[in-house]
């Protein structure tokens, strides 16, 4: 725990020196909110659309966290830390925690802006929704750092990201309801665990805690986070990087 905190501190320093990066991460979902949201029409659409943006931020923001690790690999900083007694797991978890905090701050800012458009939710429901955001952050962040650790170069990491993040986002049904499209597309989206997480977030923010989507989405989110963490810790602990 102490080690995770130390790594988090170190990782957060450049961000705190330059907090604008948090706002940059908000640009894309804000644009969707501004330029796409109104297309959905009807006042109820905000209640449907806004929770999905949490998933979008996780995919489009946190997924890119691994880019921060590559210069650390190149400069030798990661290797230097791997020779200290600091836990190698903490080298991952400290970083992931940093991105989870970033994601939560971004979610809160985004939800605050959304209220100006007519989005409404109780604080309690939003907090429950943020639990999902934490799980998404853990899962996407861990996977992103692990891929960066394995690929080591931006030119290898970037195409892997763009070719996975985009389909995951489109098939998660955060932009439009998937059941309005052709059946095969709907089936594909159901295979994508993020679509279940999106449904879960929507249900929770609407206060439908009894809905089966909450359970399915919760299981999907916990499973994704666990898989990400297990894969990540295994890769970070392994002797030969």
């Amino acid at each position, binding site marked *: 725990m102490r080690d995770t905190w130390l790594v988090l*501190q170190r990782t957060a320093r450049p961000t705190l020196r330059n907090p604008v990066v948090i706002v940059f991460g908000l640009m894309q979902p804000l644009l969707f909110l501004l330029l796409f949201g109104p297309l959905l029409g009807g006042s109820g659409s905000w209640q449907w659309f806004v929770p999905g943006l949490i998933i979008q931020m996780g995919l489009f923001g946190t997924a890119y966290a691994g880019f921060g690790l590559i210069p650390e690999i190149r400069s030798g900083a990661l290797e230097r830390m791997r*020779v200290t007694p600091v836990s190698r797991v903490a080298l991952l978890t400290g970083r992931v925690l940093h991105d989870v905090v970033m994601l939560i701050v971004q979610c809160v800012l985004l939800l605050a802006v959304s209220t100006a458009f007519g989005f409404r939710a109780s604080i309690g429901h939003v907090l429950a929704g943020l639990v999902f955001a934490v799980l998404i952050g853990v899962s996407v962040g861990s996977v992103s750092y692990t891929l960066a650790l394995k690929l080591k170069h931006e030119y290898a990491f970037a195409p892997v990201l763009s070719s996975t993040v985009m389909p995951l986002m489109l098939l998660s049904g955060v932009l439009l309801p998937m059941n309005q499209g052709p059946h095969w597309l709907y089936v594909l989206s159901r295979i994508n665990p993020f679509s279940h997480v999106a449904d879960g977030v929507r249900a929770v923010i609407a206060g439908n805690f009894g809905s089966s989507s909450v359970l399915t989405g919760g299981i999907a989110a916990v499973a994704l986070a666990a898989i990400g963490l297990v894969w990540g810790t295994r890769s970070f602990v392994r002797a030969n990087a």
Partner: protein
Amino acid sequence: MIKARGLARQFRTRGHTVDAVQGVDIDVEPGELVGFLGPNGAGKSTTLRMLTTLLRPTAGEAVVAGRDLLADPAGVRERIGYVAQGHGAGTEQKVFQEAESQARFYGLSPADARRRTGELFARFELDEVADRLAGRLSGGQQRRLDIVMGILHEPKLLFLDEPSTGLDPQSRSNLWEHIRALGRSGTTIFLTTHYLDEADALCDRILVIDHGKIVAEGSPDALKSQVSGDLVQFETDTPAVAAEIAAKIEGAQELRTDGNTVRFRVPRGDTQLPGLLRALDHADVSLMSVQVHRPTLDDVFLTMTGRSLREESYA
């Protein structure tokens, strides 16, 4: 401090295998300053990365700083310092904070970390750049920062991989002074280098590595005298007589006469000289000049491998 047996590492890249290190034995006693000398690609860094728990050996075993390398890598990490061949500071981190974090990683309390970092920054003249981003430092400043980060926790055993690469002569000799001071304060130091003068000037003992194998070992002086012997050279009016006398010296070899000059190699030429002079005097050979050249480590390497270290390392 270090006891390694049959340490080996193989890399597999796209089908073909590289035997980077092929079974080296290393013994380093507490307090020693040992150099690991070899040309590019000899396997120096790979060996160091194995000894510092960064790479798992494909064969062999080692005890480093009293801990078993394979069974207790975490114990090894607590007891050693390591300065890699490349730099080690995060480019986006401020210099002082980065070093302070490093001290915290080694378990120092916040107050101790600050104090210790401050001390070393003063000693290594990094105070002026303490608030800069590490990525903006000059090569020499970065190298000093690397070394500071390797010794914050006062390790008993310090690994330095090519500490002076890329430094100007002034900074190099400065760095050597720092390394000697660490050695005097009782730190055991194991450093790699491909600079002959560095190994010669700094190390109590040298291991010469080539193609992943240790090919020679000893103090710089021992290595030099053991392998090729000193070159003794004198000028005289009667070279034929002189050469006859020189040939009788025990261990004399490669005797050659070239005009008035007689040359030969002999182990510890400095101790042979008085006897030789007496013998020549006795035979009424008059000398115009006498010279004894100590062999260089390059001669050592040349004799051991048939190649010159110099050609490769300065290529």
